[in-house]
Each structure stands twice: as structure tokens, then as C-alpha cells.
């Protein structure tokens, strides 16, 4: 199996990447500004909904039900999509999905030496690293979503699942476009930037014969596929080319068309703070004389089925990729997306990336959270992200305890020591006394400075009040004694 999630296998741990990000003031200003804007817009559009909590409950119930019967609904989708003239391919992992996509492009591009495909935003494509695979096969992928285009042109990585170039401001985009499009006099005016992108893309929309998309939803009862977006590039990608190839993670299936009523209310409000997406494209198979003449779906597992076995882990697959948890997260706010070392960043990335890869990579991500709960509060499908983070920490610790190095790590030793002390009053009080004596080595006035080991990470940046000479316990014991003497 070649389960792959972006470039996680080569990424450094979160604390290391986060430190680099924290040193980049421009990046932090961009992320602060962008997340503030989206967050406030979301709050406005959510507050006006009297039935928001019921919608969340409904969405969570629909997703939970679908995931419990995923085999049934996927087969139903395949039947109906095929019946409507589509072709459904099943891919167990990233390599299989990429191979299917490449062979389809080859099949339809005939004797073209360097075929091109136009793409509409698909995170799944980044997950399986389709673009490098296409390029290695001599195929040129052209990203048409403005942000994806910025990322592709800058040889960059997406830093947000909805707004992939969130880490860049318009001045940086202007400079990139000036360089890559040869537009020396381009200004940073957003209209000028989008106009430049439009001119650049228009010719490709009209001439490239193969389109490649992701999907927000796949409807089992009809075989329909739905893509929502804001720029209209998606509509063009799924209607103009002769051939359309759509990548769908298997968790994207929903049972009924009517279920869209719930999700199409939750998704735009959560993702971009819009009541409705400007473009909602929905198509079923192929229709003669209208849109692509061939339609292929690649259903991708890439580690997902493993999550189905455990009830808590399964909840992760309810995600509709709205990004609300990223915008609400105080950790993401400081570091931006690249610190997560994965194309899936923020709180959802911290649980999704490690699980898809059976904790082989991204092992530091479950700890990249203060467990403040802001992500769970905004999640439109009610994924209890803090609970899943804790669960995954448990799995990481269990695995670490199987190695000698893991058992002897300073954290492990401290945790087992504390656990032993907390199981007995005598040991607990002895530990308190020991701490009070031990702290004298580090006591400067009323403060503790330059503590050793992990505690040094505290005193590196923060002061710490020394433990008082008399504890609450001492006070309580003295008082009880005094009362008994009366």
C-alpha cells in the first residue's frame, strides 16, 4: 500500500516547523488578518440562523449514518453514476489513484506529446500528490482556482484547506504574477490581480480538453456529483472540457439528494461566511450535447477505511472540509498551515493526517493543540476534535512505551513518577515537600528561574512563582489541630 498524505513523510515535527513560522512576521500578519476576516464573516452568517444547532445535529447524524453503511452507499453511488453514463474506478491508495488518472489522460489525449489538464481545486489531489505524478508522466496540470494557481506558480504548498494561499498577501501575489506572467506594471489592486489571472486562464479553459476536479458531495441515490466554489473556474472546468475526471474521497458520499439541503446551508456559511456559494455545480453522468462527453470518477480510499473500525476515529471522516476549525484555532492563528507539515492543517489536519497514515507520520500533530475546544464549537458536522486529539495522544504514548527510548524519555519518566505520587497521600505530600526543597536551587526572590528539563521550556519565556513555604494542606492540618485542641 502507498498511503500518502501530501509531503508528510518528509516533514519535520510541528514544534520545529512552528518555530520557523513564528519567526516570520509577515506570514503571521497575513494569517491573523485573513483568519480574523473569515471568522467574523462566519459568525455573522451563523448568528442569523435560528436552527444552526439543529442543522449541525442533522449533518452529524447523516454523516454518521452514511459512514456506518459506507459500503452500501458507495455501491449505490457506483450503480447510479454508471447508469447515468459515468465510469467509476476504485483506488485503494495514492499510487493506484494517480495511475488511473494518468492512464485516463493518456487514453483521451491520443498522440499528444505533452497533454495538459485543467484542474479545479481538489485537496484530495494534493493529498495523493497527483500533480507531481502527472508531471513525471509528461502531463501538465494547470490549476485554475486563483489561490491554487498562486501556490502552483510559486512552487509553494497550500496552507489552508479552503484558502490555500492564505499565507500570502496581495503584494506578494503581485510580485509573483509580475515575475511569472511578465506583467511588469501590474498593481496590487485585487481587481487588477484577478483580471490578470482571468486573462491568463481564459485561453486554457477554452482549449484544454481534459478537466480534473474534486467533489464536495457524491449523491448515492442518483450518482450525482457536487462541487461548490466562488470563482466560476470550477463551473468551467466541469463543463467545458471533452473529458472530466473527478477525484472523490470515499467519505464524500451522502445518501440522498435531499441531504444537500442540510450541507449546502452549513458549508458556505462555515467556510467563507457566505449564505450560498456563488457557484454550485451538480451533474449526473453525461448528457449528449451538454458538457463533457466522458465522465470518470476515481473513488479514493488512501487510508480512510481503517478509520471506520473505531467509533471515535470514524467521526474524523464526517469532515466536509469547510476550514472553520482552522480559522477558529488559536494555534493555527499563530503558525499558519505550513507548520503542520501536511496539506491538511489546523485542528482537522492534526487528527486527519496522522490517522490516514496509521500514525507512521505526523506523530507530533495530536499535540499541536491547547485543547481549547474552539474547533469543536464551530464544526458544522460536530466532530469532537479535542476528544480525538486526546485519543490519538494515547495511541502515540502506547506505541512509544513499546520502545526503551520512549519509556526512558523525560516526559515518560515524569508522567510515571507523577502517577505514582498521585496514588498515595504519603508519596504525594513527600513530593510536595521535595519540590519545595528542590526549588531552592532555582529560586531568585519569589520567582523560579532556569528550571531544568521540560520545565525549562516554561522558564525560558515565562516567570513562575515559587511554591509558598506553607501549602494549603499545611494550613488545613494546622487548623484542624487547633480546632481539635479547643
Amino acid at each position, binding site marked *: 500500500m502507498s498511503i500518502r498524505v501530501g509531503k508528510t513523510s518528509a516533514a519535520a515535527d510541528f514544534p520545529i516547523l512552528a518555530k520557523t513560522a513564528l519567526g516570520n512576521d509577515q506570514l503571521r500578519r497575513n494569517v491573523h488578518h485573513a483568519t480574523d476576516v473569515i471568522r467574523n464573516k462566519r459568525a455573522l452568517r451563523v448568528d442569523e440562523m435560528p436552527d444552526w444547532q439543529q442543522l449541525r445535529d442533522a449533518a452529524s447524524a447523516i454523516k454518521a449514518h452514511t459512514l456506518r453503511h459506507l459500503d452500501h452507499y458507495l455501491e449505490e453511488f457506483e450503480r447510479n453514476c454508471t447508469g447515468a453514463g459515468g465510469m467509476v474506478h476504485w483506488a485503494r491508495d495514492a499510487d493506484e489513484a494517480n495511475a488511473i488518472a494518468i492512464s485516463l489522460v493518456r487514453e483521451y489525449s491520443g498522440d499528444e506529446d505533452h497533454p495538459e489538464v485543467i484542474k479545479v481545486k481538489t485537496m484530495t489531489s494534493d493529498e495523493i500528490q497527483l500533480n507531481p505524478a502527472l508531471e513525471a508522466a509528461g502531463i501538465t496540470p494547470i490549476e485554475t482556482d486563483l489561490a491554487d494557481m498562486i501556490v502552483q506558480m510559486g512552487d509553494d504548498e497550500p496552507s489552508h484547506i479552503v484558502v490555500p494561499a492564505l499565507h500570502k498577501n496581495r503584494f506578494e501575489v503581485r510580485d509573483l504574477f509580475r515575475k511569472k506572467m511578465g506583467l511588469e506594471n501590474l498593481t496590487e489592486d485585487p481587481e487588477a490581480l484577478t483580471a490578470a489571472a482571468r486573462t491568463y486562464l481564459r485561453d486554457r479553459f477554452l482549449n484544454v480538453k481534459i478537466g480534473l476536479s474534486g467533489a464536495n458531495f457524491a449523491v448515492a441515490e442518483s450518482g450525482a456529483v457536487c462541487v461548490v466554489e466562488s470563482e466560476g473556474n470550477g463551473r468551467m472546468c466541469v463543463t467545458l472540457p471533452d473529458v472530466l475526471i473527478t477525484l472523490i474521497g470515499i467519505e464524500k458520499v451522502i445518501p440522498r439528494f435531499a441531504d444537500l439541503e442540510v450541507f449546502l446551508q452549513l458549508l458556505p456559511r462555515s467556510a467563507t461566511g457566505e449564505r450560498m456559494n456563488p457557484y454550485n455545480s451538480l451533474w449526473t453522468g453525461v448528457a449528449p450535447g451538454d458538457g463533457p462527453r466522458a465522465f470518470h470518477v476515481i473513488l479514493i480510499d488512501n487510508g480512510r477505511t481503517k478509520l471506520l473500525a473505531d467509533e471515535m476515529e470514524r467521526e474524523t471522516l464526517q469532515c466536509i472540509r469547510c476550514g472553520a476549525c482552522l480559522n477558529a484555532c*488559536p494555534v493555527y492563528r499563530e503558525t499558519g498551515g505550513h507548520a503542520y507539515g501536511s496539506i491538511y492543517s489546523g485542528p482537522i489536519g492534526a487528527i486527519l493526517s496522522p490517522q490516514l497514515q496509521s500514525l507512521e507520520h505526523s506523530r507530533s500533530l495530536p*499535540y499541536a493543540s491547547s485543547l481549547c475546544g474552539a474547533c469543536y464549537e464551530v464544526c458544522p458536522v460536530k466532530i469532537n476534535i479535542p*476528544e480525538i486529539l*486526546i485519543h490519538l*495522544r494515547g495511541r502515540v504514548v502506547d506505541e512509544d512505551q513499546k520502545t526503551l527510548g520512549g519509556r526512558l524519555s523525560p516526559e515518560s519518566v515524569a508522567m510515571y513518577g507523577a502517577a505514582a505520587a498521585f496514588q498515595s497521600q504519603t508519596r504525594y505530600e513527600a513530593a510536595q515537600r521535595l519540590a519545595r526543597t528542590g526549588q531552592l536551587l532555582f529560586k531568585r526572590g519569589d520567582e523560579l528561574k532556569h528550571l531544568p528539563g521540560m520545565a525549562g521550556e516554561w522558564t*525560558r519565556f515565562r516567570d513562575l512563582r515559587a511554591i509558598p513555604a506553607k501549602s494549603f*494542606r499545611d494550613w*488545613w492540618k494546622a487548623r484542624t489541630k487547633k480546632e481539635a485542641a479547643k
Partner: protein
Amino acid sequence: MTEVLERLGHTVEFPLAQTCCGQMHYNTGYQKEAIPLVRRFVEMFADAEAVCVPSASCVAMMREHYELIAKNENDAALLASVQSLLPRIFEFSELLVNRLGVEDVGAAFPHTVTYHPSCHSLRMLHVGDGPLKLLRAVRGLTLVELPDREQCCGFGGTFSVKNADVSVAMLAEKDACVVATGAEVVTALDNSCLMQIYGGLHRSGSSVRTLHLAEILAANEGAR
């Protein structure tokens, strides 16, 4: 806390054998090590009329995870004890406002105070404006609103040392908001968050004090 509860005419007991609710182990991934601590806690307080906890995050640990832990252990007796105990566990402000129906505890504290709603009190316990009602009833106290108050202070238990750089970046934002209020004192329902907030304030030379809500409610400054 003891002083406030006794002032209100209640009898306070402190079982000396109590230690820790198990949150640190549980949240860091040492869930097996938390189990004996959970058992110990539940046994210790089984007969209490009401258990008053001066930490919202400890109460959140109990309410969010104790049942789950008992279920995962397949221990029906533990589950029954947990379910019997949970309704009797209160965070300090909850006990005063919700259980006892008290808002004015007879405190006097002539200072400007701002309140940081800690994440667990806000999003897990949903304590609402109980703490604010208690503060508003304190004589002489001027309450000022904390900007971006619902933003995490960056403590997060072992997160504060495992991801110290990020934790401190979050703290810097929180402390800047605290200082901007011009308050003399910042208060909360969790000493852990206050330890974090203090750590940053004190390091930067600020004279803003950190006090637990109970310390303010116990105060009787300049009242006579």
C-alpha cells in the same frame, strides 16, 4: 474558597488523601495512568453532598471523560459511582450561582478587575455569566471587559512545554489584551491559565496581578 463557603454558613471538608483528578495524564496520552487516579477520586468523594472544585478544567475532565473511562474499562461499578457522583460536582462559581443561588458573597475589593473566561469553563462547562454576576456584586470592584476574551491563553497543560514557542505566542496576545484594559487584576476560574498569564505578565515587567475568582470573593478590603 474555604473562607467564602464558611462565610456563607457551609461546612467545608478537605479529605487529605485526595491528590489529582488525572487530567494531566489523560490529556497527554497517558490514559492508563489516569485510571487509578479516577478510581481514587470517585471513592474519595463518593459520600460528599457537594464537591466544590476551584478549577474548571478539572471539572471538565470529570464531566467529559470519567464516564468514558469507566466504559472503556468495562467497569460497571465504577460507571455507576461516576454517574452518581457527577451531578454533585461543581466548579466553584457554579456551586455559588447555580446550586446555592448566591451572587453577593459579601466581598469587598476596591480594584479594577478583568475576567478571562478560561476555555474549559467557557466551552465545556458553559458557566455563562455566573462569574461576572459574582464579580459585579463585589463592593468597590470595577469590572472591565477583556478584548478577544474567548481566545485561549495558550496554557493547554503539557502543551505549554511541549509547544512552548506557540504557547508563548498565544500568551503574548492574551497578555496584550489584559494590559490594554488597564485593569489592576486579571481573574479566572483556573489557576493553570492564571499561572500562564502571570508568567508572561511578570516576565514583561507588568504589574497586573493574577488572582483566582475565589481570592477576590474572599477579600474584604477597605469594607470596614
